[in-house]
């Protein structure tokens, strides 16, 4: 018999599993094992942690699907090591790995450890056992076995709100009539019960809960209102509209909000009344509700009102359509704003509503009103809308195209040019900066004053660098230079998170380097007086002007 003939298939598999497979599928090699444990027992705590992760990686690899044959081998390797390790932390880590890869084979060794005098070791063994042999604790019945009387007693009298809620929910299924009585007489738990009833399956109980809308207790009413869904009967909308007469503002607010969810065209008038309420909360709630109601009859009604109504009704209809962003309303506001023949108030409303629904086509209309609208008294309205609408549209190039046309059209009319310049931060493009710089070069004092006024309100850092250029070109005019540095400080102060932080410090650095006087430097530094942790972190980890760094750290601290 030759040597080869003695090798059976079984022997081959064993040899493969012990010698070849470890390399391929994750059994821990002796070298790796020794490396891990020498580090785990060493004095370098970072290395110890890394060794933990290495051991975990080996265990994870061996526990992967397809490596099932390796799991008992690795398990045995861990078990062999468990008794010989000197450090508690290493033993505990081994136990955690056994929890991840172990089987019933580990249980005898783990059970021995349960009796360890070392509490932590016993706990670790128990946790590993719990993972290998999970135990499922029986869940309590949560009052399921209790009778109606007991449930009623708990729902009425328990000191624990959750117990009252659970008992009520069970009672609602068993005896809705009694549950209704409990709900009607409930104290602090009434809102809980009302919601459970409103969302439950018993229609009588739901009806009882709904009747709480007529309750004089606001806490009951707002619980009903909060639980209303769009499938609520249409009569509910009528009740809600009646509730709006309340003198309790919370109830009014919650009712308005509910109308947004379940309301229809019937709520339109009530909401229109409130979109100009003196109370900001009521006004905002009404606006939200009006925008949220899905009923498209609202839009057709408003359009009819806009076409045929009295002047005040038309103004209100246009406003409401804009608040709803009703389809096509952008064209409506553009048309009315551009039409010099319509009522002044309607045109004014159209201009104002561009903030909400204007589009890039609104830019030239507004610019035209600024250029030609002084006589109509609408110039300021148009300027205001330009500022606000451009914030929403965020399309500086489209805005600048309109401005460029306006500047061209108003050539020779300084007042109009100044009126456009005043709001040119609505078009914060490079072209706009170039235009302002060339206007500055005319040395017209009113233009220079306006440029110094508008650049600090700019919506990006371009204006800051432009101000530095102007300071440079001031040619020793200290008053002018001072205004430029103050402008840089104002721009920094007015900036927010949409302005990149890196560029802020780049601008400040350039300004501080260029500034010639302590006062000018101070103007720039004061721009940082609302510094937060972001600025603090930046100056801590980056090279910045020492005076600026000190100031930022002090500002951020305060």
């Amino acid at each position: 018999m030759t040597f080869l003939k003695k090798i059976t298939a079984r022997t081959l598999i064993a040899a493969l599993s012990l010698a070849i497979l470890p390399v391929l599928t994750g059994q821990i090699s002796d070298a790796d094992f020794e490396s891990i444990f020498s580090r785990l027992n060493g004095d370098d705590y970072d290395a110890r942690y890394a060794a933990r992760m290495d051991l975990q990686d080996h265990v994870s690899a061996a526990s992967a699907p397809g490596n099932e044959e390796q799991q008992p081998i690795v398990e045995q390797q861990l078990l062999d090591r468990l008794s010989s390790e000197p450090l508690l932390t290493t033993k505990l880590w081994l136990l955690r790995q056994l929890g991840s890869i172990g089987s019933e084979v580990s249980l005898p060794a783990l059970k021995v450890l349960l009796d360890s005098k070392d509490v932590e070791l016993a706990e670790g063994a128990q946790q590993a056992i719990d993972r290998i042999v999970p135990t499922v604790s029986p869940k309590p019945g949560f009052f399921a076995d209790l009778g109606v009387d007991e449930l009623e007693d708990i729902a009425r009298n328990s000191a624990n709100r959750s117990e009252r809620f659970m008992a009520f929910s069970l009672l609602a299924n068993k005896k809705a009539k009694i549950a209704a009585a409990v709900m009607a007489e409930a104290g602090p738990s009434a809102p809980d019960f009302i919601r459970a009833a409103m969302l439950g399956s018993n229609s009588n109980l739901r009806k009882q809960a709904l009747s709480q809308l007529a309750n004089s207790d606001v806490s009951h009413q707002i619980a009903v209102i909060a639980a209303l869904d769009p499938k609520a009967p249409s009569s509910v909308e009528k009740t809600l509209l009646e509730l709006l007469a309340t003198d309790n503002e919370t109830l009014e607010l919650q009712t308005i909000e509910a109308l947004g969810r379940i309301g229809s065209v019937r709520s339109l008038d009530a909401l229109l009344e409130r979109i100009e309420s003196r109370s900001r909360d009521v006004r905002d709630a009404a606006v939200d509700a009006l925008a949220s109601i899905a009923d498209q009859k609202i839009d057709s009604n408003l359009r009819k009102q806009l076409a045929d109504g009295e002047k005040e009704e038309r103004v209100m209809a246009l406003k409401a359509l804009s608040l709803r962003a009703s389809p096509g309303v952008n064209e409506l506001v553009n048309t009315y704003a551009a039409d010099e023949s319509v009522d002044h108030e309607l045109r004014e409303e159209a201009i104002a509503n561009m903030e909400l629904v204007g589009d890039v086509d609104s830019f030239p209309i507004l610019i035209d009103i600024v250029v030609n609208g002084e006589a109509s008294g609408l110039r300021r309205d148009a300027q205001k809308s330009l500022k606000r609408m451009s914030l929403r549209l965020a399309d500086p190039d489209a805005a600048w195209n309109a401005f460029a046309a306006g500047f061209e059209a108003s050539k020779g009319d300084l007042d109009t040019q100044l009126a456009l310049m005043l709001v040119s931060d609505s078009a914060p493009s490079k072209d706009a900066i170039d235009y302002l710089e060339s206007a500055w070069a005319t040395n017209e004092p009113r233009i220079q004053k306006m440029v110094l006024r508008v650049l600090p309100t700019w919506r990006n850092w371009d204006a800051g660098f432009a101000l530095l250029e102007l300071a440079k070109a001031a040619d020793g005019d200290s008053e002018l230079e001072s205004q430029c540095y103050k402008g840089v400080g104002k721009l920094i102060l007015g900036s927010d998170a949409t302005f990149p932080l890196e560029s802020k410090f780049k601008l400040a650095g350039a300004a501080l380097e260029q500034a010639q006087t302590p006062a000018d430097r101070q103007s720039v530094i004061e721009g940082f007086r609302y510094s937060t942790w972001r600025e603090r972190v930046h100056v801590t980890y980056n090279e910045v002007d020492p005076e600026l760094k000190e100031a930022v750290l002090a500002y951020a601290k305060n």
Partner: protein
Amino acid sequence: MTKTPNRRTFLKSGAIAMASTFAAPMILKAATLGRGQPGPNSRINIGLIGNGLIMGGHRDYFRAREHTVVAAVCDLYTDRMESALADCRKENNACEGYKDFEEILARTDIDAVVIGTPDHWHAAIAIAAMKGGKDVYVEKPMTLTIEEGKAMVAAEKRYGRILQVGSQQRSENAFRKAAEIVRNGWIGKVKQVHCNLGSFAQPSEYPAEPVPEGFDYEKWLGPTPWEPYNMNRVESNYGGGWRNFWEYGSRKNGDWGAHHYDITQWALNRDDSGPVLFVPKSEDQPYQYYEYDDGVRVIRDWGDLKGHMIRFVGEEGEVMVSRDNRLDTLPVSLAGKPLGPKDTRLYKSTDHRANWIEGIYTRKPTICPASVGHRTATICQLAGIAERLGRTIEWDPVTEQIQNDPRAALWQDRPRRAGYELPV
């Protein structure tokens, strides 16, 4: 130099805010529970549990509101507890301090609790609090394990409590607007989402140190495996501390993932579902990612985020969004496009804590109840499991089980030390 316009103020109070609303968050007025000024019984008595780094903001908020009274504070550090108590007694001299949260939960006059402990204590305290009849505000991520999340969802329903998870980005206008843009299909079919989570350095084993006087380290460890005390293990620190350890959280997956994955779920309309595949870094791509069943891939810390925290890339456009109400879109007009009557409007909250208070009074679910917090936390945890095990994890979001990998499935839960079992 940038050309990005400043829209923050506008987003906060302007047309976008008005035009994209659904349910207005109403700060309840003084007369909430009656016709007239509220009596002492109409204010919500709050207990603050865990007065470390993150609780400072909550404490200042709830101390200063007309509808809330901080009636109790609790911390395992005596000095922290006493400091928080001194703060709260400035408004309410009857405020009491405790080392053990169980004492707060035993008080029947406490209506609600805020939980600001490390992650490994969230579920146990939240469930015990709900069982004790308290409404709960729990910091994100809601849980440490998937099974804890299931238990939280069940408890919220069983006990009928109002729970808010502290994923406060849902209450920022820009994140809601970003989600609405995605939901309404304005950027076309979403192909991928990029999220910026950052990374922690690897922690150390750290040598044993004496436990400081007045600190209950044994209870701090709670259900987690015993380890010797070291300050670096337990400290509250945005850059590390306990957040660094797998034992007490999911590292960056749970830290920033709990925020950005949460917004991603919201925008993709997956609040009652989840991804199907979690792939660790360097498995088949140089980045970590997960995928939904429609192929949308969410990529961590890879690709150009264009200076933002989250970037949604669609077939017809993009949405980039960050904190401080920073929102950018491609095309740019999307950011300012108002929602029309037929568009999907998402739950609107502009003050996360006020939304919870409103829920306590009205019993209306919060913007981030347990069911939502659980789905988000599940993603954080599965991404962490894939990272720890170094292999792809398949997930069934319907049965909520890891598929085809029994050993990985063990990680849906973690063994707990005796005495720290999860309440039911």
